[in-house]
C-alpha cells in the first residue's frame, strides 16, 4: 500500500451534465496527498474549491475520473467507512453545531458511529482537551465566540480519531482573533499528532503555513508547489484574484522603493528580521 491518504485521478465534475454549455466546476483534476501532509487548496470564488471539498467526502461523485481515500475507491459501499476516518469543518460556525451543548456536539459523530457510552465519555474529554475547550464542556453554542465554535467543531471531528481533517473555509467567517485561535489549534494538533490536514481557503496567509499549496482557477489546477514556489509567481496569483500575504506584498513594494532585501518573506517576523539586518548593514 502506498501512503496516499487521498487522491484524485482525472476527476471531472459538472453540476449540469445534460447542458453542454455549462463549464464543469472541476476539470480533469489530479493530485494526491500523502499521510501527514498539510495541504492548502486556494482559489477565489467559483474556482471549484468547494466542489472539490464535496467530492473529497462523497457528498458528490465525479462524472469521470476516480476519487480514492484511505486506499479505497470512493463508492456507495465504502462511503461511510471512509467518512468515519475523515473529519470536516465547514465555514459557518453556527450551522454545523448539532448538539445542545459543547459535549453533545462533540459526541454527535461518535453516537452516529455506534461508539459505546464509556468510550464516548473518554473521547469527548480527550478531543476537547486537544482543542483546549475543556472549560466549556457544558456551554451552549450561543454563549461561545465564532472561534470557539470552530474549535468545538474541530473537536467533534477529532473525537472520531480521523486520519484526515478537511477545513472547508473554516476561518473565513471569523474575526482575526478567532482565525488565529483556529490556526493555532491546527498547528498545535499537527505538532502533537501529525494529522493530515487539507485546508481550503482563499486566505494566502493561512495557506503560507501549509507544506504544499494547490492553486485552483476556473476548475483547473493552476499551480502546485511549496508556498515559497507558489508565491514567487506573484502576478499570476494577483490576476486570479488572490491577495498575496501582507509580508510578501510589503517586500515587493520595498524592493520597488529601492530597499535591497535578501529574500522573499512569508511572515511578518521574517520581514522584520530582514529589515533589522538591512538597517544595521547600512
Amino acid at each position: 500500500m502506498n501512503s496516499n491518504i487521498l487522491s484524485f485521478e482525472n476527476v471531472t465534475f459538472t453540476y449540469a451534465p445534460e447542458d453542454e454549455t455549462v463549464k464543469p466546476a472541476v476539470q480533469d483534476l489530479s493530485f494526491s496527498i500523502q499521510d501527514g501532509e498539510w495541504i492548502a487548496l486556494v482559489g477565489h470564488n467559483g474556482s471549484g474549491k468547494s466542489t472539490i471539498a464535496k467530492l473529497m467526502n462523497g457528498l458528490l461523485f465525479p462524472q469521470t475520473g476516480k476519487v480514492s481515500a484511505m486506499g479505497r475507491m470512493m463508492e456507495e459501499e465504502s462511503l461511510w467507512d471512509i467518512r468515519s476516518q475523515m473529519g470536516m469543518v465547514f465555514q459557518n460556525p453556527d450551522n454545523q453545531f448539532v448538539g445542545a451543548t459543547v459535549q453533545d456536539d462533540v459526541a454527535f459523530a461518535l453516537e452516529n458511529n455506534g461508539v459505546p457510552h464509556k468510550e464516548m465519555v473518554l473521547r469527548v474529554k480527550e478531543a476537547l482537551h486537544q482543542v483546549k475547550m475543556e472549560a466549556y464542556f457544558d456551554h451552549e453554542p450561543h454563549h461561545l465566540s465564532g472561534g470557539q465554535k470552530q474549535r468545538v467543531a474541530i473537536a467533534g471531528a477529532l473525537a472520531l480519531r480521523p486520519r484526515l481533517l478537511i477545513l472547508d473555509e473554516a476561518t473565513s467567517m471569523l474575526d482575526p482573533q478567532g482565525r488565529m485561535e483556529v490556526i493555532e489549534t491546527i498547528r498545535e494538533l499537527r505538532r502533537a499528532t501529525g494529522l493530515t490536514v487539507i485546508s481550503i481557503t482563499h486566505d494566502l496567509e493561512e495557506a503560507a503555513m501549509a507544506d504544499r499549496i494547490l492553486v485552483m482557477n476556473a476548475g483547473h489546477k493552476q499551480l502546485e508547489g511549496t508556498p515559497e514556489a507558489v508565491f514567487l509567481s506573484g502576478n499570476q496569483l494577483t490576476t486570479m484574484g488572490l491577495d498575496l500575504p501582507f509580508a510578501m506584498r510589503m517586500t515587493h513594494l520595498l524592493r520597488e522603493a529601492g530597499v535591497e532585501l535578501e529574500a522573499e518573506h512569508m511572515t511578518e517576523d521574517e520581514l522584520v528580521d530582514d529589515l533589522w539586518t538591512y538597517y544595521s548593514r547600512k
Partner: protein
Amino acid sequence: MMEKMIFGRFIPGNSIIHQMDPRAKISFVFVFIAIVFIANSAVTYGILLGFTLLVVFLSKIRLYFLINGLKPVFILLIFTFFLHIFFTREGDLLLDIGFIEIYEEGLRQGIFISVRFLVLVFITSILTLTTSPISITDGIEVLLGPFKRVKLPVHELALMMSISLRFIPTLMDETGKILKAQMARGSDIGSGPMKERIKAVVPLLIPLFVSAFKRAEDLATAMEVRGYRGGEGRTRYRQLDWRFVDSLSLLVLAGLAGMLWYFRV
C-alpha cells in the same frame, strides 16, 4: 415582559426535583393531571394544594418567583373564578347587592376550579423549570419508545425537537439583526395601525425564512459528513439514570391518588 415570563424556561439547580430522571418527571406530570380530576371536595382540593406546595418547596424554586412569573395566568384564573361566581345559580343565595347575586354553589365551584387550574399550572411549570429542554427531549424519546412498533419516527421527532431548541437563540439573534437592518432602511415596525404593523412583519419574515433554509441545508450536510444515518445503530451519549427517588415519586403519586379517592365525596 419576556424576561419575567417563566413558561418553558429552565432554572438550573440541584434540588431533589432537579436531579430526578426526566422520564419520571414527565410520567409524574401526566398522571398528576389525570389525578387532579378525582378531587371534588374541600378536603381533596386542600390535599392537592398542600401537595403542590410541597413539590414547589422541594424544587427550591421560590414561590414568589413562580407567582410573579405566572402573572398572565392569574388574570385568566381570576376571570374564570368570577365567571363561576356570577353565572352559577345553584344552592343558597349568599349575597344580593342589586344586580349581583352570588350563590353558595357558585362560590364553591369558583374556588375549586381556580385551585385545580393553579395546581396544574404550578406542577407543569415545575417540570419545565427544573428540567433542561434537552433532558425533556431525552425523556420523551425513551417514553415514546414503544410507539416505534407502530412506525412512529420517535428518534427523528426527538432529534427535530432538540435541533429546534438548539436553533431558537440563533434565530432570535438573526431576527434582531434583520429588524435592525430593515429599520436602517426606513421600515417602521411597531407603530401605526394594526394592519400596517402586520404588513411590516413580512419583510422581517422572508429574510428569516431564507436564512433558516440555508442553515438547514448546511446543517444537513454537516450531519451527513459526521456520519448521521438515522437512528439505526446509534449509541446515546446522554444516559438516563433511574434512581430510587424516581420510583419513590411515582409511589407517592399513587398514594396521593388513593388518598384523594378515599376523601372524595
